[in-house]
């Protein structure tokens, strides 16, 4: 009877421990199924205890469902710590487990008379048809062997997960795992004894021993939760202290990684001007959306997004803790954000300078080729024609005249080509007479009718005028080449210290600024002046090229 007394105490501790800790965890993290499973294990445990009843129906139901709590406990162990659904293998284990303890066990009860199994005081089994030692022996062994197989599978799954876990994950898994593994080993021992035919109090003792680690699970769970809260509170305090020291490059990230106990933490900063995140070096960063292994917490300061903390999503850091860490570091993050913004600008400037250099080289090559293929060839053939004309002057004056007239045509064409080239290098009318007049001449020369809106009357800095001129020239060239437009409008206006240049057409639209070197080159030219280029070109709605150039 001392065994029975100890048993009653353990039974209550186990049941209420599971229900209490489970409901507590479920209330705090409803999305995590571990809490619900833990509470379910507690309830299933109490269902099993009904078998102590003297009422035959209750006794039968309690005995029949007496093993369900093992499977809910295994389910919980496999779902821990994230409670976000099981892997396919784990799911199979759990499904087979539930089937064994609820369905496969029924036939056993049809042929098992407790009175014939050394349980003289037990009430009647209401499901009993007729006692059969053969069925009970064989079916019982089958169920035990399947159970043993399942337990080995659970052990293997736990071991595999342990080996794959990172160090912080192991620290987290440790208590649950220790309890789980101890439970599994005790269960194997019990099943082994049962299959070997041991009976009576030996089995009871092993059962109670096997339940002890299980009983500890909810308490270990609550303890690790409290420890994490304490650690988190301490971590924020420590972080504040560290942030008050002089920062070193990358120091903030390291401090946050320590505070979150996650070495994989990435810090990215929001650049409102670009509408993008960049990393500490100023390189653009794509937030990992929909990646279950990476979580993102945005940090705001005075209502504006400052940065985002990208952290290991498989760790149990609560969102609130990451937010608390982020809030503690918000000021330091804002400072680093400004640094990152500066680096991003420098980076962009360096890139656009390089592209400008490339464009310069390309333009020189194009110029050489244009000179060689155009004006130079015309002058060569002119020289030949003149020499030929001279030789024919006396014998065949008519032929000589024809040759000279063709030479004169070549000369005209060569001059026109040279003028066009010179304009492409630098439009003289721009430096002589200003942007307004230069744009009028551009509009007059364009093959598509151009309507001129507002134009600046005053002179602007030379670089600004040149950039605006080339925006209009390139845009009008594109209109003529690709837009299939009936007319275009050009407007240039000053607006809040910026020059707004706009060229719109009524053509087919669909222009892609990413493709083609023309618009890209313009964007680079503008970037040097801290200007911006936008292209609106919805298919069928015409194209609008808009440039904003700071002009003091």
């Amino acid at each position, binding site marked *: 009877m001392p065994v029975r007394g100890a048993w009653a105490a353990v039974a209550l501790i186990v049941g209420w421990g599971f229900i209490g800790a489970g409901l507590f965890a479920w209330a705090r993290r409803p999305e995590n199924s571990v809490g619900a499973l833990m509470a379910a294990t507690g309830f299933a445990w109490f269902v099993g205890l009904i078998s102590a009843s003297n009422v035959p129906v209750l006794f039968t139901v309690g005995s029949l469902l007496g093993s369900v709590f093992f499977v809910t406990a295994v389910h919980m162990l496999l779902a821990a710590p994230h409670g976000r659904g099981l892997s396919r293998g784990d799911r199979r284990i759990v499904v087979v487990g539930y089937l064994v303890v609820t369905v496969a066990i029924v036939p056993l009860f049809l042929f098992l008379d407790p009175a014939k199994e050394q349980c003289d005081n037990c009430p009647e089994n209401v499901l009993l048809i007729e006692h059969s030692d053969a069925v009970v022996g064989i079916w019982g062994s089958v169920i035990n062997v399947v159970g043993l197989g399942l337990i080995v599978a659970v052990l293997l799954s736990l071991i595999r997960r342990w080996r794959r876990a990172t160090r912080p994950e192991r620290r987290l898994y440790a208590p649950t795992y220790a309890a789980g593994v101890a439970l599994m080993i005790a269960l194997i021992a019990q099943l082994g004894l049962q299959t070997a035919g041991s009976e009576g109090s030996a089995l009871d003792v092993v059962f109670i021993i096997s339940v002890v680690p299980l009983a500890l699970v909810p308490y270990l769970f609550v303890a690790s939760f409290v420890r994490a809260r304490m650690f988190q509170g301490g971590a924020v305090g420590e972080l504040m202290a560290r942030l008050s020291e002089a920062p070193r490059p990358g120091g903030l990230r390291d401090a946050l990684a320590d505070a979150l106990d996650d070495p994989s933490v990435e810090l990215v900063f929001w650049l409102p001007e670009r509408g993008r995140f960049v990393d500490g070096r100023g390189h653009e960063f794509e937030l990992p959306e929909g990646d279950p292994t990476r979580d993102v917490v945005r940090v705001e300061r005075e209502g504006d997004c400052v940065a985002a903390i990208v952290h290991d999503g498989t760790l149990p850091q609560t969102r609130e803790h990451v937010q608390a860490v982020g809030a503690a570091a918000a000021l330091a993050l804002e400072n680093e954000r400004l640094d990152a913004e500066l680096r991003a600008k420098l980076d962009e400037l360096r890139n656009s300078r390089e592209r400008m250099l490339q464009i310069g080289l390309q333009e020189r090559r194009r110029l050489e080729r244009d000179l*060689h*293929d155009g004006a*130079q*060839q*015309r*002058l*060569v*053939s002119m*020289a*030949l*024609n003149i*020499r*030929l004309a001279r*030789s*024919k002057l006396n014998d065949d004056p008519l032929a000589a005249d024809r*040759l000279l007239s063709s030479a004169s045509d*070549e000369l005209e064409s060569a001059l026109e080509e040279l003028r066009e080239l010179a304009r492409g290098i630098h439009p003289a009318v721009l430096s002589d007479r200003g942007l307004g007049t230069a744009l009028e001449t551009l509009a007059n020369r364009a093959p598509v009718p151009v309507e001129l809106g507002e134009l600046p009357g005053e002179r602007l800095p030379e670089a600004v005028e040149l950039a605006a001129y080339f925006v209009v020239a390139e845009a009008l060239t594109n209109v003529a080449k690709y837009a299939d437009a009936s007319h275009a409008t050009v407007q240039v206006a000053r607006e809040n210290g910026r020059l707004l240049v706009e060229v719109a057409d009524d053509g087919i639209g669909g222009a892609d600024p990413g493709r083609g070197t023309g618009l890209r080159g313009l964007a680079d030219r503008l970037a040097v002046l801290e200007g911006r280029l936008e292209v609106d070109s919805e298919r069928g709605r015409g194209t609008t090229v808009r440039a904003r150039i700071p002009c003091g």
Partner: protein
Amino acid sequence: MTRTVLIVDDHPSFRASARMLLESEGFEVIGEAEDGRSALIAVRELHPDVVLLDVQLPDIDGMEVAARLSENGSAPAIVLTSSRDLADLGPVRERCHVRGFIPKSELSGAALEALL
């Protein structure tokens, strides 16, 4: 005996002027080619005495055309021409059967004859 000439140049205006000029000075222009590949074919088919060869061609470089023509023992006499300066063109390979260079603007029957 009249010498036969093949003019190789990618600019039609130059080919036309050169043809008139050379024909007026007693050469017989038996063909024109606008790039290196068609020049090689034309030489094989027409067997000209002289090839007036522009150095810069859209496909195969004129120097390379000269080298390939020279691989054949009975190659025609090759005279290079260009609107660029000779000094800008780089060295001419020695094994080429190149007789010399005439700047395009100085081309004449006499200048060509002087190199043959």
